[in-house]
């Protein structure tokens, strides 16, 4: 130790030796941070895309149905009553509040349930057999 004091202050040398292990950990950690950051961004993106896609697909379906029925109500006054039209409109309003962006405090699932319920109300009023049947989905692999 005394020999190397010629090159470095004694304290620094001691520090290096004592914290050698930490030093290695730090180097590894830095590399890991970068790699993990990349992975996390992609992984998150794929996950978010899947979730957003599937959820909004269902909501979009309800939106399309509502829009279509609304148009039909204009053309065919008898088929669709005023009362039902009101329900359709409120369904549309509900759908418009579905978040296009994910915010942490949004309770998306609760909203979806509300929308589903509303849709069922409208559907039964119209006596339609429309329903959002899910086909078995696959996951995306990245």
């Amino acid at each position, binding site marked *: 130790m005394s020999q190397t004091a010629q090159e470095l202050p004694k304290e620094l040398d001691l520090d290096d030796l004592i914290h050698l292990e930490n030093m290695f950990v730090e180097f590894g950690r830095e590399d890991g941070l970068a790699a993990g950051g990349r992975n996390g*961004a992609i992984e998150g993106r794929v996950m978010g895309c899947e979730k957003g896609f599937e959820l*909004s697909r269902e909501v979009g379906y309800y939106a399309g149905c509502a829009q279509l029925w609304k148009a039909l109500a204009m053309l065919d006054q008898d088929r669709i009553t005023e009362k039902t039209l009101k329900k359709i409109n409120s369904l549309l309003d509900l759908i418009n509040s579905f978040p296009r962006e994910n915010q942490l405090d949004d309770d998306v699932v609760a909203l979806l349930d509300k929308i589903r319920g509303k849709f069922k109300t409208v559907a039964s009023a119209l006596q339609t057999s429309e329903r959002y049947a899910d086909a078995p989905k696959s996951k995306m692999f*990245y």
Partner: protein
Amino acid sequence: MTDRDSRTNASPTWSSDKGSDSGNGSGNDDDIWGDDDNVSYDRSIAEREWSRLHENFGNSGYLEGIEEGKESTLQDGFNQGWSEGVQYGHELGRLRGLISPLLEYIQSSSRGASNTSSTDLLRSLDETQQKTWIQTASDLVKELIELDIAKVFDKAYFDDGLGPNSTSKTQQQTTDSGCCGGSSSKSGNESCCKSDNKGDKEESAIPQKSGCCSKPSSASGDGTASSSCSKGSSCGQAKSEESGAASTSAWSSRPDHVLADYRSRTLDLLKQVKLEHLLESN
């Protein structure tokens, strides 16, 4: 020669003469012990020890870092993906919602329900055309029901990050300016794209030449930098066909194609019943 001298010469290892000559105890100096075998053995032990330390602690640090890095970018990535997914999912679902009840309406009417006004929808079509319409509509609905997400988003979509909400325009710029200097190996990405922060939103701030790949980033720290980097990694590959055709071709990603296809088929069907305005009523 005296006896002492010969004795000195005969005992090479522990000769005090040699020790005092060097006066240096750093251990790197052979003269200390004077025995080559011992020193190189010790040295190789030391080197192996160093490598072992390096590897073991380095690896555990790496694992720590990966976890931490992942966590830092996961949520933002999720949010971005969410918006992208919603954009396409909503419309694809809506198309089904437009046609499916319409089909039901038309079919129920044609089965001789009380009012005739409902069949008016297909009145501009002759019987064959009506049958065709019904068949086409059924096929479309079925397809939309079975449409698998993997058919909409392909791997390349996430690679380039050329989604409609992402920095498609600026992404082209980065590719044009030769970000990552053509080093296509992804492992070199620590140095790439160290410049920007919330890469998605503020890419305009990217100094195209200087920031990117200028120097190796030591733990860019902000995970989102890496997130844009993962998209920017494509800039190493010659995505010139994407960037070359400027802004419009950024939209020629698979999801857009798929969506455009279904929209046009839906439009065809709607036109025939004079309900094409519904397509835009979103």
